[in-house]
């Protein structure tokens, strides 16, 4: 096993899939000659050339549409959004075309495209560039939504996303590109979509976290163990859609308590959906109302101190865990 950053794990996944399948190509702003705005595509243009790694003008709607068309024609495009904030410009292609084509063509056209890039907050990029858009895309049937939180998950899930015949919304996190983790060797390592991962086993309380809140939840779990002798289980769904609710239900049946930690705003969030599904599937097992920690319902402030206050953190999650444990 090699220890890689999430950035390099993603790079490996792209490289291996480009080699594995001639139909795979990468397209986006600055992905080729500049090696990508966040260096996820570093070295790929030099190795594979103009046909496989393609720089585009600043035209999100245009290159997203080229991706959808190429996928319909049989290729497997990986379309990079410099950040998911810019995908809003291309959302008509994603929602009205990529997500609907297979259904509306009566199954004649599948759309095996991957849209990928960083999602959520970064470092003081303010209100227009800090969106967590997973709930929006997860709301549309026809799209799969993936949010990895470790290097291994990033590599294994990206490879599965590229091989999947459906359009996949693949959401990374800018703050996490440098996070290191062990990644299994070998070109064949993949992680199936729709399977949650228990990042830490516990018996007293479940935290469902994804993307950036996974490492924060793990720290909160350590703190609960050390200071309150409370054993916290951290479940990472990894794939938002399809959601592996069964793993979460089983965890809640064991712990009887649930805290959901997410970087998006709270209203109509993925956490709200999980809370509903737990109510549906594990109501009789709950010992306390479900608590949720989200980003505050306000545009992201630019000021560093306010940005910190707006986002989920260890203390907020610890407070929520204490509340559901009646401590």
């Amino acid at each position: 096993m090699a220890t890689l950053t999430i950035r390099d794990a993603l790079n490996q996944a792209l490289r291996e899939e480009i080699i594995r399948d001639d139909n795979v190509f990468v397209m986006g702003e600055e992905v080729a000659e500049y090696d990508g705005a966040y260096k996820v595509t570093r070295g790929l243009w030099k190795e594979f050339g103009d046909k496989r790694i393609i720089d585009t003008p600043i035209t999100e709607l245009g290159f997203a549409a080229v991706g959808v068309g190429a996928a319909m024609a049989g290729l497997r495009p990986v379309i990079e959004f410099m950040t998911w904030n810019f995908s809003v410009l291309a959302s008509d292609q994603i929602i009205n075309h990529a997500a609907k084509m297979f259904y509306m063509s009566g199954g004649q056209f599948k759309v095996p495209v991957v849209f990928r890039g960083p999602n959520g907050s970064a470092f003081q990029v303010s209100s227009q560039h800090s969106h967590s858009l997973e709930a929006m895309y997860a709301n549309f049937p026809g799209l799969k939504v993936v949010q990895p939180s470790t290097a291994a998950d990033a590599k294994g899930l990206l490879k599965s996303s590229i091989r999947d015949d459906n359009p996949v919304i693949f959401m990374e996190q800018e703050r996490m590109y440098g996070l290191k983790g062990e990644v299994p060797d070998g070109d064949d390592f993949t992680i199936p979509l729709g399977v949650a991962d228990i990042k830490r086993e516990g018996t007293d309380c479940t935290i469902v976290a994804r993307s950036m809140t996974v490492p924060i939840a793990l720290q909160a779990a350590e703190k609960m163990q050390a200071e309150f002798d409370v054993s916290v289980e951290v479940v990472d769904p990894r794939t938002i859609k399809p959601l592996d609710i069964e793993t979460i239900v089983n965890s809640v049946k064991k712990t009887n308590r649930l805290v959901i930690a997410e970087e998006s705003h709270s209203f109509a969030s993925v956490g709200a959906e999980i809370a509903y599904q737990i109510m549906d599937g594990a109501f009789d097992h709950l010992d306390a109302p479900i608590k949720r920690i989200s980003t505050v319902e306000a545009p992201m402030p630019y000021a560093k101190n306010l940005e910190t206050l707006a986002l989920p953190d260890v203390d907020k999650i610890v407070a929520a865990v204490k509340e559901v444990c009646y401590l």
Partner: protein
Amino acid sequence: MAEKFLMPKLSPTMEEGQISRWVKSEGDAFEANETLAEVDTDKATMEMTALTGGTLLKILKGEGETALLGEAIAITGKKGEDISALLTEVASNGGRKASDAGGTPALQSEPPVSAGGQIATTATSQSNVGGSPTQAETRTTASVPSGISVTPTNGRMIVSPIAARMAADNGIDLRNVSGSGPNGRIIKRDIEEALSGGTRTPSSATANQFTPSTIVGASAFSDEPTSKMRQVIAGRLAESIGPIPTFYLTVEIEMDNVLAVRKQINANLDDESKISVNDIIVKAAAMSLLKHPWVNASYQDKTVRFYEQADIGVAVAIDEGLITPVVRGANLKGLAEISAEIKDLATKAKAKKLQPDEYTGATFSISNLGMMGIKEFTAIINPPEAAIIAVGGAIQTPVVREGQIVIRNLMHVTMSCDHRVVDGATGAKFLQSFKQMLEQPAMMLL
């Protein structure tokens, strides 16, 4: 479908009710178990609650208006429904319930329930057999899974889903578990503690903790045939005096020992839990009654009813008159429990919040005017009880003991007896026991 909401039977003796206050207004939606109005009955102000949800479409009887049992007092249904036909019907027959099988609604013993089954009351009807659940309890428990008990009070019991499940699975009565969660929510750890033995004790524990007796409902009884002689006695005495041939027996009781015992007990209790002389009198009367079944009885014409426990009615003066809340099974209860119960009942009585089963069905009554400076008086029997004692104040009096004049606290007690069951000697023997209990309070320990 819109329906008439009929005046329910809210007390065992109620024949009509006066709307004290509408809690809901016309157009308001309500849910099952929500209070729609407060109704003054012959004894108390009762909450009238809905059995199913709906909307209050039209109020037919306003505040202050009186309706007979089974008379329409409102129309309920879905918002916006056409109720003109119902209004016409109400106007033409005065709102009486349409007699579907020739029944006379006003005389029904059950609350008149229309087809939609709308009426439930928080009142519990008097149950004559000990141990049988009251109506309210039956209704409440019917709506929850078997094995889970909930308190039949107005207050909802708050239980987390997993705690409710664990309690049901393990046969734990949630009424015996105190919740440690917010608002007293019973949570998993409370059940775990109950399972491991010790139920959590409330944090407001006081010195006079007692385990509540498991007395449910009124005393059980046995009916035995009235002897020929007793029938003749009953008939002749009634002819001579009136419906209840009453006679009176007065006894003088030295209360010094009781006062000393009370002082001793109260020294160990906080102010809120202190017991009164009257609490001790209730206990002494209850224990004496068990020794004298003819006094703890009721003349029923063809039978004489003997009660198995002493349910003591304690007369409480309220603004509009007098009511006698009942301490059930006082012979089985300790002084702390009796005291707490009387305080609770008296508070409810003054707020007119007593439920019918809390003021009916006593087997014997006590009226105490001692605290109002009365030395001696007679009380009127509360039928069908056989007797009542009128208790005067304990007054310092010079008496002769062993040739010496000493000061003693003397209390006069006069018992009114129903001569149809209680003869002079029977009553006297009861008072002897009662006097002995109070003069030698240690006898109550037996």
